[in-house]
């Protein structure tokens, strides 16, 4: 089952909170029609798909570059 919604929060377990949810195949999975926002346990998450326009790739590339230049700063202890 796949669910789309507005990402509200994520914690260290990958537990996810979504608002305004829609189950992708509602014909097959109408069980959650009366649920508008939900908490998904991280342990059952297979993937998270982010819309490209909400991801700032320039920012990510910068962060990756900085990480590469000084791996000690944030790396393993």
């Amino acid at each position, binding site marked *: *089952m796949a669910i789309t919604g507005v990402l*509200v*929060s994520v*914690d260290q*377990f990958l*537990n996810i*909170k979504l608002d305004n*949810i829609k189950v992708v195949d509602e014909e*097959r*999975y*109408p*069980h*959650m*029609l*009366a*649920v*508008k*926002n*939900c*908490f*998904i*346990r991280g*342990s*059952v998450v*297979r993937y998270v798909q982010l819309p490209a326009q909400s991801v700032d790739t320039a920012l990510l590339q910068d962060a990756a570059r900085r990480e590469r230049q000084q791996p000690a700063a944030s790396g393993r202890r």
Partner: protein
Amino acid sequence: MSDQLKSLVERPVFVYLTDGRTLVGQLMGYDQATNVILGQTHERIFSPTEPMKSVPIGVYVIRGETIAIIGELDEELDEATDYDNMLVDPLDPIKL
């Protein structure tokens, strides 16, 4: 931590268990492992040939590992939803 469930306490919730069962009840409490206590719990049994059955099962303490999704039940929407004509298979068990 799992303060993500704080806003759901005392509220009616829908719980999707990893074995595919679905429960609704009042969220009475939870902890950081997502163990959960439900009050006035009903199991909702879906079938492709019969109307949805809601079976009262009282207070349920659910181990976090067995929980897939906890959703806030919108009571108005729930009232308006026609479960009698919802002839569908139960939700899939989660396989990882």
